[in-house]
């Protein structure tokens, strides 16, 4: 294991949606600064949108909606827990992002008059904008990175954040092919490594058959935590209504504007709104447990041309293997409903609202450390939010670094980290990562899958803490297997945080995401606040405490405006 030392002005960890945008914006703002994108895979096809995206969920387009309306909608959908100023940024800058993407060659759907063809999927406003030709989105983004002559290092996974006197000064990384170790000093660091998509185990039992791109193992959640940053509301899980056995969504939000809808076994509607929320997931869970399951996306009542049009979008974008999944089972939307089920749990602020705590400039609680995209806690932020947060973080960081010098790397820390990375390689006959990961994630299902029970969560928490000892038994025969071993460290950290936070918030909130059987009601008096997880730097223990919400920009009366999507 060679050690490769590098020094840059601004380091972007993760070359996905947020990372590519951040790198371009940093370069545009400060052309003479050295900017580096570090990517675990290859930025041409990496991150949540590796195979494109069929639409955007949070488009605030003038003439259709305002940033204020958008903030109100998300405030209600997320049961009041948010920093409105960060969500407001998505509303304010989203249209700019859409126009810039168009200049880069991304196509959004327009009507006959050339206006954006927005669809209503949310409870009130129209924020969904289809991208029927969105399959090459990631290629277009990586081309922009190249065009701006930004340095990219592919196939290197960050493993820890380096700090000095409470300031972030760099990262360590692992070349997942050569096994070399990177030590990269940077004046500011942006973590945008995506969701923790490998937390729960899919019902299929296939470790990588997850909703999220399985490269996104909670790397950033774990690295930020270990560096001493605050994470917030980790008990607000990500749970999605997916095609049963397949890892993709049924995509009611694509099909519902064409007349499709989510139905129970009798073919009847049971939810009034297909926008993904914890409340919607709770209605799905109730229906499945009421004798009215299974639930399915119903299209068989539509005419041939409509079904063909829906198929073209669903089979070409985001999850192109969907067509062969159905074909293998002899299923046809003209005759069959798309059977749906509740996904494994994950952590992802892009869909729900748990992640590294950030302010409206995407600053974490550690100076010099920024977070963006799915791992930064800006509720319901989706793809447009990832672009906006990447841009906001980069533009702020380029000001921050002006008066900053590089820090000094602690050689003891580097040696300890090197030993941690080498341990599985020095133990090639140790337990394979597949078995260690399977068992950990099965415990996540057994003890954390909602509805949540207190004793279950306590057992889970103990098991996740004890599992540190199991990680010492991991064996790797090559750098690739070592990458998977280190990812299990990330997953374990996320599991412990998920159990700790779920036990702490003694109420139910966000529908199924945090539905506690022992505290089934929302309790605004005690819990209209953030729960913060932070590592104590004195004794390395995980601490958790309440923190007040930031004052709202826009008043919302949450007692009057309840988020209810059940069909009466």
């Amino acid at each position: 294991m060679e050690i490769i030392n590098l020094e840059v002005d601004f380091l972007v960890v993760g070359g996905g949606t947020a990372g590519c945008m951040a790198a371009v914006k940093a370069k545009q703002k400060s052309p003479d600064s050295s900017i580096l994108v570090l990517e675990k895979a290859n930025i041409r096809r990496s991150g949540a949108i590796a195979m494109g995206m069929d639409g955007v969920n949070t488009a605030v387009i003038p003439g259709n909606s305002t940033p204020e309306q958008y903030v109100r909608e998300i405030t209600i959908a997320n049961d009041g827990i948010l920093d409105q100023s960060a969500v407001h940024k998505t509303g304010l800058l989203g249209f700019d992002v859409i126009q810039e993407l168009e200049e880069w060659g991304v196509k959004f759907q327009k009507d006959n008059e050339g206006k954006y063809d927005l669809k209503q999927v949310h409870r009130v406003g129209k924020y969904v904008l289809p991208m029927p030709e969105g399959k090459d989105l990631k290629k277009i983004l990586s081309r922009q990175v190249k065009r701006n002559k930004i340095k990219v290092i592919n196939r290197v996974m960050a493993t820890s954040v380096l700090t000095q006197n409470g300031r972030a000064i760099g990262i360590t990384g692992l070349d997942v092919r050569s096994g070399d170790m990177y030590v990269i000093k940077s004046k500011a660091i942006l973590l945008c490594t995506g969701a923790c998509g490998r937390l729960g185990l899919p019902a299929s039992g296939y470790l990588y058959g997850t909703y999220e791109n399985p490269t996104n193992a909670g790397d950033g959640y774990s690295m930020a935590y270990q560096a001493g940053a605050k994470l917030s509301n980790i008990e607000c899980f990500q749970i999605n209504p997916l095609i049963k056995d397949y890892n993709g969504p049924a995509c009611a939000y694509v099909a519902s504007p064409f007349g499709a809808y989510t139905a129970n076994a009798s073919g009847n509607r049971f939810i009034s709104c297909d926008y993904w929320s914890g409340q919607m997931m709770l209605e799905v869970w109730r229906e499945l447990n009421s004798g009215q399951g299974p639930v399915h996306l119903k299209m068989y009542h539509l005419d041939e041309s409509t079904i063909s049009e829906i198929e073209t979008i669903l089979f070409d974008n985001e999850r192109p293997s969907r067509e062969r999944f159905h074909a293998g089972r002899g299923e046809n939307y003209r005759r069959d409903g798309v059977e749906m089920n509740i996904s494994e749990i994950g952590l992802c602020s892009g869909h729900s609202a748990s992640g590294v705590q950030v302010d409206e400039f995407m600053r974490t609680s550690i100076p010099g450390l920024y977070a963006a995209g799915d791992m930064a806690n800006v509720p319901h932020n989706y793809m447009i939010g990832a672009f906006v947060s990447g841009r906001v973080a980069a533009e702020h960081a380029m000001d921050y670094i002006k008066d900053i010098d590089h820090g000094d790397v602690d050689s003891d820390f580097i040696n300890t980290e090197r030993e941690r990375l080498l341990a599985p390689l020095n133990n090639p006959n140790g337990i394979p990562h597949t078995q260690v990961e399977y068992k950990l994630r099965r415990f996540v299902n057994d003890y954390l899958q909602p509805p949540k029970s207190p004793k279950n969560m306590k057992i889970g928490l103990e098991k996740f803490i004890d599992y540190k000892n199991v990680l010492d038994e991991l064996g790797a025969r090559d750098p690739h297997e070592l990458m998977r071993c280190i990812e299990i460290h990330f997953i374990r950290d996320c599991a412990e945080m998920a159990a700790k936070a779920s036990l702490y918030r003694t109420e139910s909130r966000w529908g199924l995401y945090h539905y506690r059987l022992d505290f089934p009601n929302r309790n605004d008096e005690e819990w209209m606040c953030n729960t913060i997880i932070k590592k104590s730097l004195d004794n390395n223990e995980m601490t958790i405490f309440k923190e007040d919400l930031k004052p709202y920009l826009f008043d919302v009366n949450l007692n009057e405006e309840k988020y209810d999507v059940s069909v009466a």
Partner: protein
Amino acid sequence: MALTSNRVDVPVIVDESKCLDKCKACIEVCPLDVLAKNPDTGKAYMKYDECWFCLPCEKECPVGAITVQIPFLLR
């Protein structure tokens, strides 16, 4: 530790008669980095059973040598 090797039905199938010895397109784009060249044959194969069936390998292969199946457990 006692270890054994299990047989696994893998999702990525390579037609060796088409696969080009000097091409690494599929290996470079795989998000999970599960593909490699067989040093004996020069042909690509699925070295690690860690597939998201996301299809960049199939789409970016210049000669159509790759077919991705849904993994058996989900099929």
